[in-house]
């Protein structure tokens, strides 16, 4: 029996992608845990910033929304939305965006708008917010998902944020000069994208999870030939997450 939660494993699995010098575009929920964990554990010289314009806040408390007052506190700069997006797409910066979605397809395209018909939806979600923008501009996108068949779908009900579009070089042909889906971090494991076809494949599955379970919960065929078991969280990683990143236990 693992002595850590799904959210803890996901935050650490995503955090391990972040390198010193990266500019990390964080959202809320697990994404803010991952960004903060990355900075405190793996990449102290990474910078966390928010689409709302808060750059490098101290994050002594976990923000519950990207406009939370806590993203404005201890920053190097508080800017506006337009300035924030000039950072996401800046040619000199390596920006990694953390997103979440209701649906994802095998090319890492995301839906955060509706289930069902756009005009008469069965379920309406919040909408793009800044997701479509960062998916267009960031150097790479890491998406958090609950790994379920109804979320990993052949065809999205609505394409809010472009990943690898239709695979191959189709993203570039759209006129998007850089970026694309980098990884998908779920409660079962970590997916990446094939270098040329841009199709999703299983890269890691967590301790205690089987490859079959991933296949069963994915709504399209997924290559599992390169899959390896993820290293479990270390005691130190968990300590930092619990004591420093989210001491109020708002998300963990």
């Amino acid at each position, binding site marked *: 029996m693992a002595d850590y939660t799904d959210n803890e494993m996901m935050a650490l699995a995503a955090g391990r992608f972040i390198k010193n010098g990266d500019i990390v575009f964080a959202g809320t929920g697990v994404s803010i845990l991952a960004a903060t964990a990355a900075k405190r554990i793996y990449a102290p010289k990474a910078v966390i910033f928010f689409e709302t*314009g808060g750059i490098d806040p101290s994050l002594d408390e976990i923000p519950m*929304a990207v*406009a939370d007052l806590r993203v404005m506190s201890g920053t190097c700069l508080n*800017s506006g939305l337009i300035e924030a997006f000039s950072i996401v797409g800046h040619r000199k910066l390596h920006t990694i965006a953390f997103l979440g979605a209701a649906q994802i397809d095998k090319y890492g395209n995301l839906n955060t708008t509706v289930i069902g018909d*756009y005009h008469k*939806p069965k379920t*309406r979600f919040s909408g793009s917010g800044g997701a479509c923008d960062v998916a267009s501009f960031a150097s790479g996108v890491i998406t958090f998902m609950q790994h379920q068949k109804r979320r990993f779908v052949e065809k999205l009900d609505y394409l809010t944020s472009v990943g690898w579009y239709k695979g191959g070089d189709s993203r570039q042909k759209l006129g998007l000069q850089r970026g694309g889906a980098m990884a998908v971090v779920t409660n079962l494991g970590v997916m990446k994208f094939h270098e040329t076809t841009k199709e999703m494949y299983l890269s890691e599955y967590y301790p205690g999870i089987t490859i079959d379970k991933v296949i069963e919960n994915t709504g399209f065929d997924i290559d599992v030939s390169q899959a390896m078991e993820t290293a479990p969280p270390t005691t130190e990683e968990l300590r930092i997450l619990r004591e420093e990143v989210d001491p109020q236990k*708002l998300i963990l």
Partner: protein
Amino acid sequence: MAETPRKLGKRRSIMGMYPEIDDKLMTLEDTVRRFIKNNSQIAIGGFTVTRNPMALAYEIVRQGIKDIHLVCHSNGQALDVLIGAGCVKRLEIAYGGNGRYAPTCIRFKKAIQRGEIQFEDYSNYQMSLRFLAGALGIPFIPTKSGLGSDLINLEGFPPEIRKEKKVASKKYVVTQNPFNGEDDKVVLLPALNPDVAIMHAQYVGEDGTVRIKGLTFADIEQAKSADIVIVTCEEIVPRSFIRLDPDQNSLPPFFVDAIVKIPYGAHPTAVYTCYDYDPKHLNLYKKVADDDRTFKEYLDEWVYGVKSHEEYLEKIGSTTLLQIKANPVLGYAVGLDRK
């Protein structure tokens, strides 16, 4: 003498305290009566749980304004209350959410699922650029954002309203970069020039200068793009104070048409250095908003049933107001129970 917004508003009774803005200082009631009309296109300031002009939104509801065309990037509580109270006919939006208290705004979600409002989706950056274009007086503005997405592929508004005032003839145009012979596409976004921009700020100087502390979101672009700008604020501050540190100011006086001093005017959303969002109230809202009957009871109790913003704050109670009071140095309420 205690300054209540009600007294402040009776213009002469503002007592000539602020002669430079005497013609702009008014009550919530007068401001809405004068500037917000049925069918107005309104840009709303703030972002999800922060700096929503709530007192003004409540007054719009109380005055029964209908058929508003709301334009915003990411909005939360004000958006949801205005939609829920039936004030909104048309919506251009990037995001309707209230942090963990409503990952998707509840009445917004219902209104769309029931087909009660006309809506069209953009992204945050796109909406911000549209306000910027409006502020700059240019008819459209290019971006790369959204290429390939359904934001661009699917129009939300029905074709028959495309000819109406304040509705763009098309949602987007995708075209070639005219400066580049190669195949390089851009998205053109239509500018926005709303009838009214409403926003809540920490300070307005007695000279009318506006200061937003913390993140400004797209409030400044929204204000500059609009015909009329209404600013509600926590405090009116001396000219000597607001001009001591002009680098911190957000809007010069001549953009502003109406000023309402209304402390806690963004409650239950947050105002940096003043107060945090109110988890208790947002949780209460979450509980009642999902059901038509309990939502109506909520409006009856908290909006229609209060005679003034003071009465509303009395109902919130001093214990809560103290709990959400921000540490003025850190900007938020340290250790606030936010569950």
